[in-house]
């Protein structure tokens, strides 16, 4: 009889953490050969995605933010650095590289994709920092060349990392001031939301800063299409915005493998119980992070905390011990506001984010996080994160 197999698809923050957590929680079962953990990921490299902002707007060197995936994993986790083509969740089979792989438990941590082609004209017309390091570096090059005119930061939804568009606008402002050309540059921030940040309490902090820095706020702007020849963006609401340089946050979609396998909704998001993180309608299948349809920030910290909850629930199922725990919706997204100040957008399902005062300390915490990311993936900072964030779950549904 073969060992009981846990398959994890996706090697981003959530997939890496859930694999390592399970390897730690089930170490005796792994040592005895009763259980195996297999991680399938498209690349043998792991990219620290929040640093795309530093690459695009500060000119940071991309290689600093890449590590070998194998080195981030518990030695007992079997790594398949190959993309999965298809998942047959009813028969518990994965198709990858022409081979079939049978599993008993499945974790879908397949993330989200920024899809500029989702809006007519957007791919040809715009730069962005959500489709990877290479495009982030191109954004930096375009900003360095820019001499005068209007820069439009154009937000499309849904997208990952809710703070990133505000951070982008303020970093563009900062860069143009450093270059001494700010008076020749207009910056417009066009968002589908009613305010600069979707959450009211946070927008109250951001909007006065935009006003002070001379960033024009255009609300309720849902992009319909872009005309690269006319250098204009048109909204569903019937408005037009002209630009000289267009930097966009593209609309995001679920992973192709989720769509191809019929496991997502029409945008590719997986129908997931927001407490237990079980995929609705399927036994022994969990989804975490950006991949789910849970109405919550698509962010690294959510993927991290959901990975802990999913790992605990799977380990309990395998051991036949206890009722499932429920993710409480904890979010904690750093939001950099220029001038070496930041806040953290923090809340749960039950508690909306409260207003905060920007501070240097929070800015330093955000900057420090990038160096803590790698040991965090390996579970070496669990105690620190638990003290800081509290337990990300409740024992009742």
């Amino acid at each position, binding site marked *: 009889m073969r060992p009981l197999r846990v398959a994890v698809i996706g090697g981003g923050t959530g997939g890496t953490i859930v694999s390592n957590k399970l390897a730690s929680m089930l170490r005796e079962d792994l040592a005895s050969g009763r259980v195996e953990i297999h991680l399938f990921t498209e690349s043998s490299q792991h990219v620290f995605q929040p640093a795309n902002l530093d690459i695009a707007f500060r000119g940071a060197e991309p290689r600093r933010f890449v590590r070998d995936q194998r080195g981030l994993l518990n030695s007992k986790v079997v790594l398949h650095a190959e993309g999965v083509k298809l998942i047959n969740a009813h028969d518990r089979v994965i198709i990858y590289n022409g081979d079939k792989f049978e599993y008993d438990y499945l974790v879908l941590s397949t993330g989200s994709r920024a899809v500029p082609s989702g809006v007519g004209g957007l791919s040809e017309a715009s730069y962005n920092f959500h489709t990877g390091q290479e495009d982030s570096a191109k954004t930096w090059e375009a900003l360095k060349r820019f001499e005068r005119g209007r820069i439009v930061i154009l937000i499309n*939804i849904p997208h990952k990392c809710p703070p990133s568009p505000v951070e982008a606008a303020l970093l563009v402002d900062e860069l143009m001031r450093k270059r001494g050309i700010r008076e020749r540059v207009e910056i417009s921030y066009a968002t589908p*939301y*009613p305010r600069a940040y*979707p*959450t009211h309490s946070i927008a109250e902090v951001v909007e006065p800063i935009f006003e002070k820095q001379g960033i024009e706020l255009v609300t309720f702007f*849902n992009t*319909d299409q872009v005309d690269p020849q006319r250098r204009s963006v048109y909204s569903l609401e*019937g408005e037009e915005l002209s630009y000289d340089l267009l930097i966009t946050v593209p609309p995001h979609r679920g992973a192709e493998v989720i769509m191809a396998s019929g496991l997502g909704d029409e*945008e590719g998001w997986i129908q997931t119980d927001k407490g237990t993180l079980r995929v609705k309608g399927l036994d022994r299948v969990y989804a975490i992070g950006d991949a789910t349809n849970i109405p919550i920030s698509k962010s690294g910290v959510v993927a991290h905390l959901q990975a802990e909850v999913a790992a605990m629930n799977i380990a309990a199922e395998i051991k036949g011990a206890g009722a499932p725990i429920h993710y409480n919706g904890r979010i904690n997204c750093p939001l950099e506001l220029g001038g070496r100040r930041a806040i953290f957008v923090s809340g749960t399902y039950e508690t909306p984010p409260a207003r905060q005062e920007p501070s240097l300390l929070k800015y330093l915490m955000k900057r420090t996080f990038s160096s803590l990311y790698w040991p965090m993936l390996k579970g070496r900072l669990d105690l620190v994160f638990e003290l800081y964030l509290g337990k990300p779950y409740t024992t009742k549904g």
Partner: protein
Amino acid sequence: MRHMVDARGSYCPGPITELIKAYRKAEPGDEIELLATDPAAKSDVKAWAQRSGNEILTIEERGDHIAILLKVVKKAK
């Protein structure tokens, strides 16, 4: 056609995200029913409807959430 949007329990990025997803799919003449627990949802949806030229038909307080029924009367294409 009526589009149902259940955004209860969503604060960030908020019910307006879900509403706009439905608006993208809707045709003029369609209705969108939004359920939300976010206290900002009522004023946000009112402001969006006014700005975009769409119509709010009813707003109902239903204990722990509100239900807003909109009619899509304007869309760029």
